[in-house]
């Protein structure tokens, strides 16, 4: 609760240099002093929670509304739940979420296949547009990819072959 000036009467000079014009947030913020209410304002009605919603540990609970898209699930969901045990100021929070995001990509492919859908990764990556607007670049990329793969496969084959010969000896 906000204190009154008389509550500070024991502090000599309290508020004597206060300048209401010193408001560097103007005009972005229309300062009203409402910040001093903290979280005691009248909140909007609470959205019912029908799916699992993770919330930052820097707040006491859910917000009045929230999105219900893609609730946490699978291995990525486990990692996300772990991530939310850290505060937002902690790298463990964000790095865990990035790890979960990467795992989630493979879960997405698995889910597609389980539902009988083979993802068209060529189309999903928009390579049709690359072919249309940057045919030369697209061909260069494909040729480079084929060359790198061929060289890598050749090297791997050679290494494996030598290893086998050594074993025989």
């Amino acid at each position, binding site marked *: 609760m906000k204190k009154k000036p008389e509550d500070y009467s024991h502090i000599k000079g309290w508020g004597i240099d206060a300048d209401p014009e010193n408001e560097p947030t103007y005009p972005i913020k229309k300062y009203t002093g409402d910040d001093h209410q903290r979280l005691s304002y009248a909140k909007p009605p609470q959205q019912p929670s029908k799916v699992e919603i993770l919330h930052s540990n820097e707040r006491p609970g859910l917000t*009045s*509304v929230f999105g219900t898209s893609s609730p946490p699930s699978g291995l990525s969901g486990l990692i996300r739940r772990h991530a939310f045990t850290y505060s937002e100021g902690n790298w463990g929070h964000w790095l865990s979420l990035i790890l979960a995001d990467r795992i989630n990509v493979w879960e997405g492919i698995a889910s597609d296949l389980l539902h009988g859908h083979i993802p068209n990764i060529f189309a999903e990556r928009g390579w049709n547009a690359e072919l249309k607007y940057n045919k030369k670049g697209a061909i260069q990329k494909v040729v480079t990819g084929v060359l790198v793969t061929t060289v890598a496969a050749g090297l791997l084959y050679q290494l494996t072959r030598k290893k086998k010969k050594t074993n025989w000896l």
Partner: protein
Amino acid sequence: MIAMNFRGPFRVRADRNKPDPVIEHPEDAIVRVTRSCICGSDLHLYHGLVPDTRVGTTFGHEFTGEVVEVGSSIKNLKVGDHVLVPFNIACGVCPFCKQELYGNCHESNPEATAVGGIFGYSHTAGGFDGGQAEYVRVPFADVGPMVIPPDLDLDDAVLLTDVVPTGYQAAEMGGIKEGDTVVVFGAGPVGIMAAKCSWLFGAGRVIIIDQLEYRLEFAQRFAQCEAYNFRSLSDPVLFLKKTTDYFGADVCIDAVGCEAAGSTLQTITGRKTLLQAGSATALHWAINSVKKGGIVSIVGVYGPTGNLIPIGNVVNKGITIRANQASVKRLLPKLIEHIRAGRLNPKEIITHRVPLEEVSDAYHIFSRKLDNCIKTILIPPSARA
């Protein structure tokens, strides 16, 4: 319904079987989308740079649409209204909303306290599905959405949901004084708009910096500003110092954010290995190019972890840094007046109109800057009929 569906970094598709959204709160509305844009900040999600971007979510925070259903508490909107929907989800009653910080609402994002809810912008911004779809759920529909005035072009209206207010607020936060030299880093849609709006505050000289010639040419024409390619400058900071009589710019605006090019160290640590929250090259240049006691205004989007910037120079030069997500609702009345008076003509920045079904190609074109792309609008099938 048809909706954009994120499948992983650099992979999106038009999902034809996404369930229609439903009313989940008495202050919700369901909107049938008529226009939605791909924002430059959507590319940060698309490139996998924003933590907690889950497979299956739908992006899109810039959209217009027709109200098709309202929750039991909605008073200001009715079915059939054609609305533009600010990208911020704002309750209107928390201390931040009451002080017009609509981009910092405390009741719309449980997942993070550092950012308010944003449509289609990962679970870090609330986990809401976005407007790159046929239908979208709009929470707190009595607060954010605005019925589109009949004399306002729909293309201008959709750009008022983010690009124009963000560009305008970038200039506003610069505290531009008459005659000031303003340097804008980034000639994307927001940077171009920031350069254009800087004149409205009385700038004496506006300079825009980027690496893409076609965007610089457009910016020069659209925003009537000077445009320079940093690839042709050996040292952009030194160039800006020299061109301001070795004094520094009065105001620098970072309209790039976490995918800035121009520094190998920043690119490797920020974009390739994610050791920092994106590449902060533009912000680095802004801090070093501004004068002592100058102002750096940041609207470029960065991730939540941390960035390599010369904070010592901020202290020693006495720089004021001002930054925020645009408070769209606060700025709309003023910006609509600017459009009506012909001072701003946002729809000129639209270069591509793509059916929603071709969303994969649209993202790739925007991401790779193909076909001289500046701003892409997605149009759902029902809006094309």
